[in-house]
């Protein structure tokens, strides 16, 4: 791996310590300010074409017990990151959670707490998690298609991988670091990228050779996609100009998967420009598809209904397509899965559904 220059990260981390120290010097109650990370505080950035945090901020003040603990933990985490950079190591978020066991009062009580604080640090310093030498637990998902990638392996050698010829049916596994110091996209010969929510549907498309028959790059999202998966799709889209189509189940949670790929996620809106792919389109399954294809369904649960209603007030879902589809789904009160298409046979999705939808969207011409 090429050694990255971390001096900028260290300056930014020290700035936090400096801020707190100066507050003490000025006999002011120490505090840190950061954008409010909620649905109500995301705004569309015209320049970047993605959703970013708005102007609302919250402050973490040492005035309250919770705020003081927060600041103490922030200081410990910042110090820990500095230390990792110094000794050239990295750790997973989970490892950091366990390391905090030794931080006495600053110890985390759940990994959720430490994950959130890592994100806070990103927001405050406008650095990325990778800059902090922290990596996620989950691996990136899989890719199959006529695509060649060059990866710099742990032995510091370059390795070219063709994502059909050099991989098995499970595909190429996306590493947690997909930045240019790790991978390069060497060449693509395809017409579009299709990102699929479930493993079952990904494997169906592989088995039916949809990648070759329709010149597609298949990416498995694995549910709510990891940062590296979203970053990979973004790079692929930017560097190859291929359209991105999102193919998920038909329920409010799947719509959020689409939103995090296309618009940027609420939790990571500070780095939307790195992660979001504004040129993504939602392929399906749409609530209209449920009616048009007469798909097998389940009733919406109470949670589903609440999630749909919440999406109606989510600024990212305010266009006429989404408003119409969400209202339709609330009206019919049903949800469906990608794999429900198997009602009409195993080949139905590749022979009929996808070609029809892609034609409708102007991706395929027949």
């Amino acid at each position: 791996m090429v050694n990255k220059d971390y001096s900028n990260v260290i300056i930014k981390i020290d700035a936090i310590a400096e801020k707190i120290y100066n507050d003490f010097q000025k006999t002011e109650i120490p505090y840190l300010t950061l954008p409010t990370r909620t649905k109500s505080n995301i705004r569309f950035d015209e320049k970047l074409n993605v959703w970013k945090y708005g102007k609302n901020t919250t402050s973490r003040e040492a005035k309250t017990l919770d705020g003081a603990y927060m600041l103490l933990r922030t200081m410990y985490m910042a110090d820990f990151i500095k230390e990792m950079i110094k000794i050239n190591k990295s750790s997973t978020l989970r490892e950091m959670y366990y390391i905090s066991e030794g931080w006495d009062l600053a110890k985390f009580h759940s990994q959720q707490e430490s994950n959130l604080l890592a994100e806070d640090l990103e927001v405050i310093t406008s650095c990325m998690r990778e800059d902090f030498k922290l990596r996620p637990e989950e691996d990136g998902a899989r890719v199959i298609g006529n695509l060649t990638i060059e990866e710099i392996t742990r032995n510091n050698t370059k390795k070219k991988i063709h994502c059909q010829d050099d991989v098995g049916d499970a595909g190429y596994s996306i590493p947690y670091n997909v930045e240019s110091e790790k991978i390069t996209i060497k060449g693509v010969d395809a017409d579009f990228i299709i990102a699929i929510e479930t493993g079952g549907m990904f494997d169906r498309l592989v088995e039916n050779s949809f990648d070759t028959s329709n010149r597609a790059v298949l990416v498995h999202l694995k549910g709510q996609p990891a940062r590296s998966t979203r970053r990979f799709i973004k790079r692929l889209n930017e560097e190859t100009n291929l359209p991105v189509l999102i193919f998920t189940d038909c329920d409010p949670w799947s719509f959020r998967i689409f939103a995090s790929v296309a618009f940027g996620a609420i939790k990571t809106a500070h780095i939307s420009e790195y992660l979001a792919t504004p040129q993504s389109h939602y392929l399906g399954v749409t609530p209209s598809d449920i009616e048009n294809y007469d798909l097998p369904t389940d009733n919406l649960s109470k949670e589903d209904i609440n999630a749909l209603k919440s999406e109606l007030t989510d600024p990212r879902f305010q266009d006429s397509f989404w408003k119409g589809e969400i209202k339709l789904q609330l009206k019919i009160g049903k949800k469906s899965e990608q794999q429900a298409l198997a009602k009409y046979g195993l080949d139905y999705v590749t022979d009929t559904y996808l070609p029809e939808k892609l034609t409708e969207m102007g991706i395929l011409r027949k």
Partner: protein
Amino acid sequence: MTKITAEDLAKKQKEISVAEFFERNKHILGFGNQTRALITSVKEGVDNGLDACEEAYILPDIYVEIKNHEDGECKLIVEDNGPGIVKKQIPHIFGRLLYGSRFHAIRQSRGQQGIGISAVVLYGQLTTGKHAKIISKISEDRPAIITDLAIDTNKNRAEVIAKDTTHWDKPHGTRVEISILADYKRGKKYVYDYLQSTSIVNPHAQIIYKEHNGTEHIFERTTDTLPRSTVEIKPHPYGVELGTLIKMAKHTKSRQLNSFIKTEFSSMGDRTTNAALEEANLEKNLKPKEMTREQFLALHRSFKKVRIMAPSTDCLSPIGETLIKRSLKHETQEISPEFIITSSRPPSVYSGNPFQIEVGLVYGGNLPKEGPVKILRFANRVPLLYQQGGCVITTAISSIDWRRYGLDQPSGKGIPSGPAIFITHISSTLIPFTSESKEAIADIEEIENEIKLAFRECARKVQHHINKKVRRVKTREKFDLITKILPEIAKKSSNMINKPVPSLDQIITKIMDVVWIEDIIEYEKINRAPIQTTLIGESNEEKSGGTITKSKILVVNYKQKPQKFNLYAIIPEDAIVGETNPKAAKITKNYIKWSLDSIAPANKIDITFELAGLEKGDLDENDLYIENINPSFVIGADKWEGD
């Protein structure tokens, strides 16, 4: 069938003696079954003993013993250290129903009708055929008299079977031994409960209970002060019944109606008497003995229409908040409750009868967390054990929404659930019992309202107590923050950028931003007399020895500006103020006031004061108030609302 004439019937018609009536209606007086009979007998014996002692200004020592025989017969022994009974009165008091000294007097007392103890004697005679034995001694230099007696139920007279004298170690007192048919196995636990409850409302009495197997329970005395002796009052016009009014007029010595009203009734002066007469359209010089029923009726009606002052309340003898609290504390030691809160209402009146309500609430500790709260009811210092459901006390408690005060109560009505004991004591010249067995108090609106008011006040105090605790906990958290977390943040941040650790003093006051008041109370056994600095100088009781209650109040100014204000400490009414440091600005019966010097930021002052006349534990938390400072600046004291 032969025709029955009125004359035939007349032959069968004859007087029924009270004793005969009792024979057939035992249940009315609380002898309905053998368990009840045991408790009622103990109750009558103990009530009698306590009343006797108090009337003679003697601190009561009551001894209760029950011996159980195989065949279900119990021998009940109750002994007191009262003044004793003169020889010739013994047969009347123990062997005659409806004989007593208290029936005609309007003042608070336990027994009234003179049925109690003689009913036990009668019950014993009916169920075992045995005579009662009474031993009584009236003074040190006289021998004790032993009387064996039975009751002639036809004549309602005692029959003295045997009389003798004996030596008795006690200087004076009375011992009663009565054999009764009773269920000892079931009843003994209730006897214990009854005596314990009695002890709570009679903190001036010591009660010893010896079970059949020899186990002795001692319910100790928690105060050496006798209850305030009650003054007999005249009937109040609001409460008098028409028949009574007529009877009183027949026996009066007054020759004119206006002087009859003024002398025979309480709260009747010239003005009210004239107003009543005018209302009734009666001449003031009418001869009471010659008045017609219609005239009495008019007078009786006019009483209700005229505004008459409430009767004087000297006739009542409430227990007092401090004593109830002390008693409860003593009796609930094993439970170690979280807090005990009491509250008492000023005297009030229903139908011309004065009454007063006192309530208490014991909360937490080892009390069961689930199930309905325990309700202890007392009337004139006597526990009420039965018919809880039909009692005005229960009605009043059930009608309060306790959910607001942290107790469970489905639908906000009924007896609440939770780890609590509710105590209610009603003192009155006439307790309106629902029946002769004196187990439940009738639903009188005035009484119900007073009970509700008392419990609401109690509940507010509970709320206040809890809020205060919550605020303190929150401030403690801040202390944690300041003493532990803040220095850590400072250390870590300065280490990261290689600078010396900054000073935190000023930031600490900035974060706390309160005036912190905290108190500690200690008790000291002493022999010296407390230094009397009471300005009002009302208390001329010379007390030496006993316990000194020492309070230390710590005031810390964590505000950024100097603070100058007045501090008040509430003191119990029966406490005598000793030394105060710094010197108090004012001392009254109810509070001590300090005008504190200005306290600079991050500075503190200590205040101490001593109280005499209290027992250990009477005051376990000071009630502190502040004046001339924004109350939201202060933790540990509330806004002073004036005297």
